[in-house]
């Protein structure tokens, strides 16, 4: 067999010139993880079966090392103003202790990264960027903050980021923190202690489950990881890798930069026009293009597909309508929760409308290596956690 996954292993030998290691890489090696070079970082792809890790997060809890994510701080009297100019969201309106999902766009409205911005204080924000974009986002923020009283610092090396995700997360974390988790709302963050270490504790995630993200000092990461692992074992917590993280976010209909989002797409294309705050005061980069895009009839739409065979639609495969190409798959995987292949795809607006009709059966397919495999259009997300 030939497979990129196998040749991909060629780059996974840790050495001094290889990908960056996180404060937890040694822990992953001890656990026997399959490690992979992800955006220049040596990251755990899986520890055992990624399907089992996925299911543990849906039913109990999973522990993730996300230390590859970029952490940038923006501080100063004009920090909020600088972010309001640099990003599409209204960050001045964000209260300290709260967080928001937002994006940084180019002048033409193309998405340069999607971000979570935490307001830590009136004059201090923490911007979490995708690993592959962190350096570029830091440069963009500095450039866009020029002339304002706000400083941008890349603090990625100063933070380990550990996520605990899944319905049992609060039960596991509760006894190990001084924070009263019942008071920590979704998309909120608090300075807290976890396993005796000072951290920033946030109720955020990328799995579609309840859960927490823990920003810790690198030297505290292993202690926190080990303590959570031990305390969580009785609850069914397992370490989970990037493979499970990807299928979890796909089921939850969450976009991945580089797949559903990129410089050739606006937030509106991805169905995320709501993050563009055209009514906020002042100019921001991309405003004119995004205002025009908000008014225009969309040419394409991001849709959910469920494969009707066992063949999996994957990134880059063509979507077919009556046999003719009408779009492209952006992400696809076998869904452990649905027990069927699922995918997100951009298709023409016309097909997105027609394929949603009851009588569309048999007309929509995905070109899987030269075979038209039937698919069904479904509303996103594929999975919503039980209330």
């Amino acid at each position, binding site marked *: *067999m*030939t*497979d*990129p*996954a*196998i*040749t*991909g*292993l*060629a*780059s*996974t*030998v840790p050495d001094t010139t290889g990908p960056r290691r996180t404060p937890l890489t040694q822990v992953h090696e001890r656990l026997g993880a*399959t490690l992979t070079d992800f955006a220049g970082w040596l990251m755990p*792809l*899986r520890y055992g*079966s*990624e*399907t089992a890790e996925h299911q543990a997060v849906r039913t109990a809890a999973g522990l993730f090392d996300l230390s590859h994510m970029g952490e940038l701080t923006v501080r100063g009297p004009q920090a909020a103003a600088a972010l309001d100019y640099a990003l599409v969201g209204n960050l001045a309106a964000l209260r300290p202790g709260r967080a928001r999902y937002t994006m940084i766009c180019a002048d033409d409205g193309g998405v340069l990264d999607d971000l979570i911005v935490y307001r830590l204080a009136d004059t201090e924000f923490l911007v979490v960027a995708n690993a592959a974009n962190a350096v570029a986002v830091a440069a963009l923020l500095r450039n866009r903050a020029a002339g304002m009283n706000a400083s941008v610092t890349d603090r990625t090396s100063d933070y380990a980021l550990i996520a605990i995700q899944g319905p049992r997360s609060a039960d596991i974390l509760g006894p190990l923190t001084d924070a009263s988790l019942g008071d920590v709302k979704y998309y909120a963050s608090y300075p807290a202690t976890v396993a005796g270490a000072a951290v920033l504790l946030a109720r955020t995630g990328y799995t579609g489950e309840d859960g927490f993200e823990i920003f810790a000092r690198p030297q505290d990461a292993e202690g926190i990881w080990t303590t959570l692992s031990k305390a969580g074992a009785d609850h069914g917590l397992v370490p989970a890798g990037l*493979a499970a993280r990807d*299928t979890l976010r796909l089921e939850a209909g969450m976009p991945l930069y580089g797949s559903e989002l990129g410089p050739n797409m606006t937030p509106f294309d991805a169905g995320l026009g709501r993050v563009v705050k055209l009514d906020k005061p002042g100019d921001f980069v991309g405003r004119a293009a995004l205002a025009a895009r908000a008014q225009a009839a969309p040419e394409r739409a991001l849709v959910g597909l469920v494969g009707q065979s*066992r*063949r*999996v639609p*994957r990134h880059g495969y063509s979507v077919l309508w009556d046999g003719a190409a009408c779009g492209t798959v952006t992400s696809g*995987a*076998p869904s452990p929760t649905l027990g069927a292949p699922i995918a997100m795809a951009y298709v023409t607006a016309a097909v997105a409308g027609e394929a949603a009709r009851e009588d569309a059966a048999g007309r929509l397919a995905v070109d*899987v*290596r030269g075979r038209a495999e039937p698919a069904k259009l479904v509303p996103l997300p594929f999975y919503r956690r039980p209330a």
Partner: protein
Amino acid sequence: MSVPEELHYTPEHEWVAISGSTASVGITDHAQRALGDVVFVSAPAAGTKVTAGEPCGEVESTKSVSDLYSPVDGEVTEVNPEIDDDPGLVNSDPYGAGWLFKVSLAEGDGDGELPPGLLSAAEYTALTAEAGS
């Protein structure tokens, strides 16, 4: 990583066990680890003529789809009937219950004569070590 001594291997990560004029074929432990959870196998149907080094099927895993290559020339006589319902056997027991198909070797092969191009366990181990796993 397990590489049984008595088997032979392809550079594309299949194993083959030759017994008389019959060859059993599967994918290696190295391959199943690299692929992750196998969710579907399209093996060549009984009666299909296969050629050494040519693609003859596909393996779908969580992460990717990859071609399956025949290690030998011959005709497929049997496909593992368990794999369709339980493709995870390829992960849990790649050299045993996870076998994929059997081939009746073409004339001239078999009889202790090894088809050309196959690797010994030591050669395959060296190959995968070079690839860095």
